[in-house]
Every structure is written in structure tokens, then in C-alpha cells.
């Protein structure tokens, strides 16, 4: 792809909503095939960072590059960029008036110009791979939360993205449905997918991440391997955050 192997580069990213500065200078570099987990309290800016990376939020200052191409300069075709960067949302955001299959083929047919037959073939193949083959003709509201979120992941994958952004994809799920979604993400990681994952599932982050970033008040306060961050955090705020997670029994 490109020489230095960097899939995604974020430089000095700032973003405010009104007077509230949510991101206050984020620097992040994600290599190809790397899995980066973003952890941190609610409101620390994880979701906003992901939405900025997918250009769903305009940024105030800084730079984002996808595979070396600066995507924050004026005049870039945002639709083309988004086709290469898949995002999965906390609340699934499936299209309720479309069948599962149509949810998945919509992007390939309407944004990529893939033929209907080819999009259908690809989608059914993906559904099969993630154990959802029998759901292709159902509407999303007939599915469990876990199934819906897996469909949302398949929908993003059908665009054959270079990078996947996952925004707390298990936070809206009942506990017993979390595992099936995490397993899908594990499979993606095993397949070499480059991913940036905002999550509250610390055990999962420890398993899957090549690198963990702790976000605090709009900056990456500390980053390192899962071993460093979870076993020997240097920053006091990181320690306190992890302590509160342990006390809540979520690790």
C-alpha cells in the first residue's frame, strides 16, 4: 500500500462542540494490520475521535491521513474516503426498512457501483461466514441485538474497507450477547484487519489489542502494549481509571 506501512495518521487533532473542547490535540499512528484499542471514561473523546476519523464530524484543527493521503484538506471526495474506512456504531444504526441483505448490499451497489448480483453474492458469503446466512431476508427488528450488531459489522465489511472503526459496539448489548460480537471482531483481527476500537471491555482489549491508548479529557494520556497499560500503568489517572473498572467488576 504505502511505504511506511501507516494505515492511519492523526496529527494534533482538535475538535470542539460549541465551547466544549472534546479533542485537545490527538496524535495517533496506526500501522497496517494493527489493532488499537481506545479506552477511557465516557466523555473522554473516544467516539468523537472515531467519528472524526470517518469524516462524520468536521475537525477544527489538525490533520488526518489515510494511507498517506491527507483527507482533511479541502476538496477531497469524502465519499471515496468513507468507502475505505468502515465504522460500526454502538446503536447498530441498521436501516429498519430494509432486509438484512439489502442493508448490506446498499453500500456496494450505490456507492461502489458493484453489480446487484455480485453485491448479493458477496453479502451472502459474508453472512454465511458470520453465521447469519438464514437471516438474510429478515428485517432488523426481528433480530437480537447481537445479531443486529453482527449484521452492522458485515455491512461495513461488504465495502471491503482498509480500516475498521468500532465505536463501543458491545455497549448496547445484553451481557449474554456480547461474546458473539467480540468473537466476530477477534476473527477480523486474526484476518489482519486494521482496526481502531473504542471499548469498555478491558479483558477483550487486553486480548486483542497490539496497542492500548488511554484517553483522558481529549488527549491520549498514555499508550503502550496491553501488558504495559493494564499491568503497569505509569500515569496516576490511568491507574485510577483501571482501579474503578476493577472495582466495578468489569475486568
Amino acid at each position, binding site marked *: 500500500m504505502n511505504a511506511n506501512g501507516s494505515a492511519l495518521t492523526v496529527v494534533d487533532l482538535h475538535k470542539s462542540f460549541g465551547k466544549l473542547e472534546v479533542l485537545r490535540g490527538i496524535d495517533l499512528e496506526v500501522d497496517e494490520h494493527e489493532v488499537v484499542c481506545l479506552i477511557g471514561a465516557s466523555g473522554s473523546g473516544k467516539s468523537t475521535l472515531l*467519528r472524526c476519523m*470517518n469524516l*462524520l464530524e468536521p475537525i477544527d484543527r489538525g490533520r488526518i491521513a489515510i494511507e498517506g493521503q491527507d483527507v482533511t484538506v479541502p476538496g477531497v471526495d469524502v*465519499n*471515496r*474516503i*468513507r*468507502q475505505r474506512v*468502515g*465504522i460500526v*456504531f454502538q*446503536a447498530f*444504526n*441498521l*436501516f*429498519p*426498512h430494509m432486509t438484512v441483505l439489502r442493508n448490506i448490499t*446498499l*453500500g456496494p451497489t*450505490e*456507492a*461502489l457501483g458493484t453489480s446487484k448480483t455480485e453485491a448479493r453474492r458477496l453479502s451472502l458469503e459474508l453472512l454465511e461466514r458470520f453465521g447469519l446466512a438464514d437471516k438474510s431476508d429478515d428485517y432488523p*427488528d426481528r433480530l437480537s441485538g447481537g445479531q443486529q450488531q453482527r449484521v452492522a459489522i458485515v*455491512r*461495513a465489511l461488504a*465495502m471491503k474497507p482498509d480500516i475498521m472503526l468500532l465505536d463501543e459496539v458491545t455497549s448496547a448489548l445484553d451481557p449474554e450477547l456480547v461474546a458473539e460480537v467480540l468473537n466476530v471482531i477477534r476473527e477480523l483481527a486474526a484476518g489482519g484487519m486494521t482496526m481502531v476500537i473504542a471499548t469498555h471491555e478491558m479483558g477483550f482489549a487486553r486480548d486483542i489489542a497490539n496497542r492500548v491508548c488511554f484517553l483522558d479529557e481529549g488527549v491520549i494520556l498514555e499508550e503502550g502494549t496491553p501488558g504495559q497499560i493494564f499491568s503497569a500503568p505509569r500515569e496516576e489517572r490511568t491507574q485510577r481509571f483501571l482501579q474503578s473498572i476493577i472495582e466495578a467488576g468489569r475486568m
Partner: protein
Amino acid sequence: MGMGGGGSPELYQYQAGDPRLPDGQRKSRLLGPLRAEGARGVAIAVVSTVVVLALLVWAVTSSPNWPEVKQAFFDPEEFKRVFPDIARAFLRNIKYFLIAEVFILAWALVLAVLRSLQGPVFFPLRALSIVYTDLFRGIPTVLVVYLLGFGIPSLGLPGVPSGAAFWGVVGLILSYSAYVAEVYRAGIESVHPSQAAAARSLGLSRAKTLRFVIIPQAVRRVIPPLLNDFIGLQKDTALVAFVVAIPEAFKQGQIYQAADFNFTPLLAVALMFLLITVPLTRFTDWLLERQRRRRQAGVAA
């Protein structure tokens, strides 16, 4: 205590006829409670209805002026004589309605989409759409029909249709589009922004997001209010009577009323409208009820 006692235990918390009861328990606001009360309830309802109706009929027909009223409004001979002509004329109302409705649905959607465009570039289009809806919602429909139906043919412009009915229907289209555009807009705004975000995140353009994701959901949600506007439009086709030479139903009724000194023809016209509007109203109610049930089922799940 009705059927609630015999059913499954989770029904206890609901009154009979409660709309939250599972599908099949309650279909109609009018008859639902009866069904829930069982055979005895039905019998009571039938008897009391018959008694009330009999009393009403007796009170009206035994009043001293009934013969004159009957003569002027409910003359069966007159009714039989004028009905075929009025029914034929009413076909024109249906034609006006159908033609107008197609253009209203399309034009109003254009107006609503223009108004939903974001960004400074589109300001003029947005403003135009707002001014349009303000204007046409603010002017009585009868005035628009009158202005266009008499005004434009009187100009005698070359190459422009000069039929009064044509322009009368154009007046209906212009006026009703403003109302229907607002209905569409409410629908578009009711679709959660996360739907647009999901579509855009797949790389779909704004236009395709609107076309495939926002508008289909918006239209589904506003079908009942749209039907309400249909009903209004169906009635307002009578406004074309003010400008046309070839009579539609209302005008035809007026002609007979003036010639025969009898109001029965106008009642025949009213009957024609009711034949269309009452079933449409019931259908709209049914759709609304079904939508509400589905929403509640969705929340429960």
C-alpha cells in the same frame, strides 16, 4: 370483568380493550370493547342502539315542521331524478382529485427536500421553499382556485391552457402542496440523524442517503397524515365549482337546486362525498392504530 380474567396472567394489568393488548385482541375503537365484553355486551349494545335510533327518528318525524323539511331536503322523487346526473358529475371530482394528488405528492416532496438541504450554498432554495409554504398555507384555498381559475384564462395568453377547470386544479395543487410539504418535512425530521450517519459512513452521497434511507422511512411514517390531507383535497375539489363552466358534482347540484327549488340535489352531492371520505377516514384510523401497535410492540421487544 371481561375476558381479561380468562386469558394469560400477563393480561391482568390491562383493562379490556386496552390498545396494549396483543394483536387480535382489539381491532377497532368502536367494536373492540364490545368484543371484549362478550355476547351479553353485544346484546345490550344492540338493544340500546335500536332504542336510541327509534327515539331519534320518532322525535324528528313527529315534529310539526317535518313535512316541509322532508319536502325540501329529503324528497325521494327528486333524489331519484337527479342522482344519475350528479353521480356522473362527481366523476369529474374524482378525476380532479386523482390528477391533483399525483402532482401534489411529487411537488410537495420537492419542496420538503429543498427545505431540508443543508449548507450556505442552498440558502436561496431553502428560503424559496419556506416562502412558498408560508404563502400558500396562508391564503384560503378557495381564493387561490378563484384567482387562477378566473384570472389566468382571462389573460388569454398564447400557448397557455385556458381551461378554467385546468387552472382550478392547478390552484388546488399549489395550495395543497404547501400543506403536504410540511407533512413530509415532519417525516424527514423524525428520522434519527444516526440513520444518515450510517448511510454517509458507507460512502453514500447526500442525495443517495436521502433517496434510499431518509425518504423511504419518512414517507412510511407520514402516510396517515398524508391520507388526512387526501380527504381534505377530495372535499375541496368542490371548490373548482366556483370557476368551471362544465359542472362537477357541487355545481351540478346547485343547478338542480336552483331549477327545482329543492335542496335534495345538494344532499345527493353530500352523499357522494361521504361515500369516498368516510371509508378513507376509517382506513386512516386503522393505519394509525396499526402504526401505534407496531411501535409499542417494538418498544416491548
